[in-house]
């Protein structure tokens, strides 16, 4: 009994930064609930500062822990009785999620969004859920954290309380609930087959291989359904364009990267230990995601909807590294996610900056904006070619590494399907240039409707966008720092 207690205390000590998030969440909720006459402006600024401080400090703590864990390669902490594993790769992903959250909060602040206090509270809980999701290897814990993330994101999506916003929220909720239900069913099947809830253990793999392959494949496919929903991969992708179109942009920016990062980590953990050959289904998911994402985006006239469909295509690309079941496949997926962080946050920031003056997210409203403001035009070109994956942006390096991993896997296994996915994925890059270049095309080529006025944005907003652009090009010119960091990550 005493042993269990000391184990729990030990585990809590290592998870202190995460628990801090929970405490802050409760503190904000209590403050809002129990104070009547609030000076709204000052309180929200206070919340903002508090959260940014918490994020930065926890980010630094994670980094310190990360350095500590890196030196001792075999060091993995089993916390809370094998429910949670704290290792270097989960710390890396926590840092990524912290950076995303920080960037989104700065986005909200810099663009002057009016948010209620509960926004901060729920955002904290969402990030906390993501942190737990990066650490877990137990089906039950995964489901709990996934639900925490899902419920918080359902609430965040409907913050604007407008009509199409609520419609998007309901769609999100219904699709999400269905996917979670399918996931639970899959988990129950897997538990029935293997008798254990820990999906990286030896028992799981052994018992799984004793069952007929087709039933295992169906069960695993259903299980990752809940995860693919968060990733916006086919066939769980239908919510993406509608939700992306109607939700306030900073929240969309966050949803487009942070849940994806956590889900990819879970998938990496799962597929590293799976003993069956899941590649056929994975290849079909990848090709379908890339095709549907790219071809649907060609017809879009709303920039946010177009980015939603492009997210579906990118989800397909992220899974390519998992299809190549070698270590460099996993490393290239992590590299792709890290660079996608910068690119997608920059893309949504750009769209929001443009919407400041044009008051609309339609492509037509972007006419001539690049001529009025050269920096925005240049930024649009760089971000859009990063999304396509052309040099000299880091999008190209990410895709190059993914397809190198896939080629290597093809060379060692000789399976023709991998080559098909490779050629398919690369040719789709050419298709995607057409819709991505539409944004700079409208901005630079078309004449503005009411003469040419010079439209300056603030220095802070320019600077914020510039940080992302700097990373996009810098990481192309010298990726070795990031690559070395990723190579040192070890799975539990």
């Amino acid at each position: 009994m005493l042993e269990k207690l000391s184990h729990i205390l030990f585990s809590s000590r290592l998870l202190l930064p995460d628990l801090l998030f929970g405490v802050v969440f409760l503190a904000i909720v209590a403050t809002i609930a129990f104070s009547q006459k609030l000076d709204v402006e000052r309180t929200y600024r206070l919340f903002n500062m508090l959260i940014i401080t918490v994020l930065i400090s926890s980010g630094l703590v994670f980094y310190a822990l990360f350095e500590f864990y890196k030196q001792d390669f075999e060091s993995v902490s089993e916390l809370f009785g094998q429910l949670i594993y704290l290792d270097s790769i989960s710390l890396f992903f926590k840092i990524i999620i912290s950076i995303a959250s920080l960037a989104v909060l700065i986005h909200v602040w810099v663009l002057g969004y009016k948010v209620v206090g509960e926004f901060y509270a729920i955002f904290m809980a969402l990030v906390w859920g993501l942190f737990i999701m990066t650490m877990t290897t137990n089906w039950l814990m995964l489901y709990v954290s996934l639900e925490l993330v899902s419920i918080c994101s359902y609430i965040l999506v409907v913050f604007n309380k407008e009509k199409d916003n609520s419609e998007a929220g309901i769609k999100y909720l219904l699709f999400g609930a269905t996917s979670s239900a399918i996931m639970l069913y899959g988990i129950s099947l897997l538990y029935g087959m293997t008798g254990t809830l820990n999906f990286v253990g030896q028992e799981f793999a052994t018992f799984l291989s004793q069952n007929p392959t087709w039933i295992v494949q169906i069960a695993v496919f259903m299980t990752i359904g809940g995860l693919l929903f968060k990733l916006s991969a086919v066939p769980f992708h239908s919510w993406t364009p509608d939700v992306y179109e109607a939700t306030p942009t900073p929240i969309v920016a966050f949803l487009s990267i942070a849940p994806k990062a956590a889900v990819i980590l879970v998938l990496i953990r799962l597929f590293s230990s799976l003993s069956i050959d899941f590649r056929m289904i994975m290849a079909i998911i990848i090709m379908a995601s890339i095709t549907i994402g790219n071809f649907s985006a060609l017809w879009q006239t709303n920039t946010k909807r177009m980015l939603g469909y492009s997210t579906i295509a990118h989800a397909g690309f992220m899974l390519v590294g998992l299809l190549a079941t070698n270590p460099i496949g996993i490393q290239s997926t992590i590299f792709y996610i890290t660079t996608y962080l910068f690119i997608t946050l920059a893309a949504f920031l750009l769209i929001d900056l443009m919407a400041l003056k044009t008051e609309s997210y339609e492509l037509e409203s972007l006419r001539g904006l690049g001529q009025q403001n050269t920096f925005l035009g240049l930024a649009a070109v760089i971000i859009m070619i990063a999304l396509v994956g052309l040099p000299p942006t880091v999008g190209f390096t990410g895709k190059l590494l993914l397809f190198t991993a896939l080629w290597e896997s093809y060379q060692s296994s000789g399976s023709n399907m991998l080559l098909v996915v490779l050629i398919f994925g690369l040719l789709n890059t050419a298709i995607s240039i057409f819709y991505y270049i539409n944004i700079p095309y409208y901005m630079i080529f078309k004449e503005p409707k009411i003469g040419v006025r010079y439209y300056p944005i603030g220095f802070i907003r320019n600077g914020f966008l510039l940080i992302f652009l700097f990373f996009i090009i810098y990481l192309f010119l010298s990726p070795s720092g990031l690559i070395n960091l990723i190579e040192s990550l070890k799975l539990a």
Partner: protein
Amino acid sequence: MNNFLLSALIFLPIAGSVVVLFLPSTFRDSFRWISLIVSVINLLNILTLYNNFDRQVSNYQFVEQHEWIRMSLGNLGVLSIDYLLGVDGINMPMVLLSGIILLIGSISSFTIEYRQKAYHSLYLLLSGSIIGCFVSIDFFLFFLFFEFMLLPMYFLIGIWGSEHREYAAIKFFIYTLVGSILILIVMIGLSMSVKDPFFSQEMGRTVHTFDFRQLTDFNNFIPHSILHPYEKQMIFGVPARLFAFILLIIGFGIKLPSVPFHTWLPDAHVEAPTPVSVVLAGILLKVGAYGFIRIAYGFFPDIAYQFTYIVAGAGVISIIYGALNALAQEDLKKMIAYSSISHMGFVLLGLASLTLEGVNGAIYQMFGHGLVSAMLFLVAGVIYDRTYNRLIKNFRGLSSAMPYFTLAVAVAFFGALGLPTLPGFMGEFFTILGGFQSEILPNWVSMLAMLGIVLSAAYFLWTLQRMFFGTFWTNSNQEGKMQDLDFREIVMLYSLSAFSIIIGIFPSLIFDISGVSVKAFLNGF
């Protein structure tokens, strides 16, 4: 070995581009001068390079090597990408051509009035990128510049072009991008199949490299890799190396352009503004041909030897089909565009013959055609600048109003159709000689190519006669606008004419440089 001449050639224009971008717009008229000065300095550097080029050596000279990316692939080795530049006999003429054409282009860019800052910034970016493409000997770096060229070109055509410019620009971009992606597939496959012998021993692991010098050596291939030259691996029932070669042919054939992948060229050339057309026809097409020689034939000589008849066939079809199309055109610029397709077919024929005369002739034809097509597009630009009209039937008897212009036009047209003492003759002569000498190609292939010479004489002389001889008349009373050349145009056209006559009479200026390297290149076959 690490002198920085080649890096200067690339980074001076790029630095110039950044400078132009950050200067305030009040400097309106000085942007064109910045562009001109940068191009002049670049040309002087290239002439220094030309003088110091050792003509007896077939290896790469002026090599610069800096370590760039080292990525560990676990137990599969290390991926190594270097910043690697060098010139040998095959790309030296191309670098020289780039210097000349980019200078002519920047003189011609003085006519651009609209948004000069953006134009000159993009033009300098394009310059740096094209030269980078020619001097890179690391496949990744080559590919980086090869793809990056597309972006400034897209904007240059799409913003400063004529009526259907946006359609032409996006067609150009997507079409050539598909080609680039096919090349990317082969690039990934090759680098994964080759290991660098020196670094692998040094580091104790397999070092995958993109270095051109290592990729040509068959001993460097890793056993059981897909593209291994001796083990015949199959993909979908087709030998893997043949698969890669076909992808490369399609990829570079889109850029060259060879029939049937040529359909972007008439649109892009016609809609682009004059200086951009000059650069497009003068050097961009040569990048495709250079890729053919260096990469398709250089890295896959075994497959190339067996399947060179495909390339020769594409060449001959380009010659005849391009010429027939040119004969049918009413728009002057479109006619010149199709004649470009036709003359690049000679390059393919010369290359496919795999003889010393043929390949040397192909390189000479690339150089000569670059000069001549630059002149042709400048000619079309002179007419378009004055009247915004390019149709042949709208002009007659221009020689009486514009005698200096007619002289330049005559040199250009005769140069293109292959009059001796002008570059077209030497290029066509040597490529067809190579065709006849070739052990692989049958004689009738070269005879069909000669038919192309007759056809090019037909359309050029007919155009000359229709537009320049007879009584002076223009459609819709524009005779007043047809003034003779001004100083800038005289400088451009006459310096190009003089230089092409010199090249035509002294072809050794090019053959001396390419000779030894081509000999080494053909040793692999």
